[in-house]
């Protein structure tokens, strides 16, 4: 569709139409359109927190649901998350200024010996998209790095990722250390990665195994509510 007259001018849309259009643009991973839309809403006097929750988070929920349901795959979700990130880049300082409420805080990392971060990055972006503050420790994270980050940031949630059968057992090492230090119960621990499963997560003492980033967001929200 290249007809000029079919082009949608974002600034001419009503609030409701613009919100809906942006949710679709998010789904299609259109980064520039998201930036433009966020700025239009700001100009119209919307509170940053409302743009985040009523537009972006809502849009990412659809992306997450379709990822969970096997309709979207990693490439599409990464593009959507990147568009989300661009919107967040504008909103983040404004959210801090206006003292907007936060969903919670998460420390996340790929465990020692493992370089795989595709799933972990997706979790980080989707959690951020759901309104969480995310501290990403990157790849090859050993137990000391996890402990230091927990000490510094006091997260509600710890997320660990592993893609290899030769690294997934390291999650148990981390959880055992948390128990030894007496801080295991202060945290919700969620784990994920291709070779893992629910039973594995349970056996190593995690609170939950999350099959994908969408499930991670749902699980984090659910466990936080239960805790409260």
């Amino acid at each position, binding site marked *: *569709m*290249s007809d000029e007259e*079919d*082009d*949608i001018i*974002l600034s001419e849309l009503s609030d409701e139409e613009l919100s*809906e*259009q942006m*949710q*679709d*643009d998010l*789904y*299609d991973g*259109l980064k520039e*359109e998201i930036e433009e839309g966020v700025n239009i809403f700001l100009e119209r006097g919307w509170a940053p927190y409302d743009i985040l929750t009523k537009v972006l988070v809502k849009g990412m929920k*659809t992306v997450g*649901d*379709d990822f969970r*349901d*096997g*309709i*979207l*795959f*990693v*490439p*599409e979700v*990464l*593009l959507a998350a990147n568009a989300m990130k661009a919107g967040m880049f504008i909103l983040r300082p404004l959210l801090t200024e206006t003292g907007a409420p936060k969903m919670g805080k998460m420390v996340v990392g790929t*465990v*020692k*010996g*493992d*370089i*795989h971060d*595709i799933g972990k990055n997706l979790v980080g972006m989707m959690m951020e998209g759901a309104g969480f503050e995310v501290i990403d420790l990157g*790849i*090859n994270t050993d137990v000391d790095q996890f402990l230091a980050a927990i000490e510094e940031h006091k997260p509600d949630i710890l997320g660990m990722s592993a*893609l*290899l*059968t*030769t*690294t*997934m*057992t*390291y999650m*148990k*090492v981390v959880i055992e250390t948390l128990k030894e230090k007496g801080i295991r119960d202060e945290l919700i621990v969620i784990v994920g990665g*291709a*070779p*893992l*499963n629910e*039973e*594995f997560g349970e*056996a*190593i003492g995690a609170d939950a195994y999350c099959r994908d980033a969408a499930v991670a967001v749902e699980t984090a929200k659910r466990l936080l509510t239960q805790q409260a």
Partner: protein
Amino acid sequence: MNKLNKLLKEKGILLADGATGTNLIPMGLDSGQAPEAWNFDHIDRIQKLHQSFIDAGSDILVTNSFGGTARRLHLHDLQDRVVEVNKAAAEIAGDLVAKSGREIVVAGSVGPTGDLLFPLGELTYEGAVEAFEEQVTGLKQGGVDVAWIETMSSPEEIDAAIEAANKVGLDYVVTASFDTAGNTMMGLSPSAFAGQMAAKDPRPTAFGSNCGVGASDLLVAAIDMVANADGIPVVAKANAGIPKIAGDKVVYSGSPELMADYAKLAMNLGVSIIGGCCGNSPAHVKAMADAVRTHNGGDAPTAAEIIETLGPLVSPKSDKKSERSNRRRRRS
């Protein structure tokens, strides 16, 4: 004609080997350690694993070089020894094959780089080709019969690995992992993958699937691959069920008996190369060898029949529809 071609012609069905990583853990591989480092530090243990598969009846040995690109070896400070690591992996397997007195294919394992290709990630297509080329060069110097490109999920990364094998002048096999709603995590379906392979020039010696989420899922994916293979032999190397923790150990839920059933179903489906991935011990491979040797064939199973014998699918295809509103895009 490479040795794999020749053996496929002679025998019709070939038995591959079992797992590398999960079999090295009980031999002392700590979590987070690079299996490839053992090509220097514990040659005896790699030999022991290969020999156990030779003894179980494997026609194909996959080398201990899965993580052998610079991009992965970097983490273990081995990025400057890529050619050496892969050459050693090939030689360890090749020496045992020479001593075995049997005709066994040495397949040089090439795993994914672990990076996303541009524009999703930083790694360019050319960068990926370069990384694979260095690895395949080492494998060829060590004398492998084919490059065994495995556990792949991205069509572009598959292209890059194939281009590297072609540049080095080595025949190749590619297997993908269908672990996400019947597709790879990057959304490649078994039939699209088969189409991609059939369109290659030169074509792969064989293609198929390894790893993923269990034997049922893999064989259901194999139905679509066989249907679209256009005569290229199909590979099935499934995990022995799913991993569970028992004490300090990881054990897989699938027994050797289950993998024997899997091997028979794979034969009936028209799969030509049968073996195992994660969780498959030499005992599992032996059970598959016995099954392949004694099985008299049968009708190709349907997905329902596969599930009835091997258990439910872990990540079935989706029949759901998106609830997005589908407004017109601004730019197409």
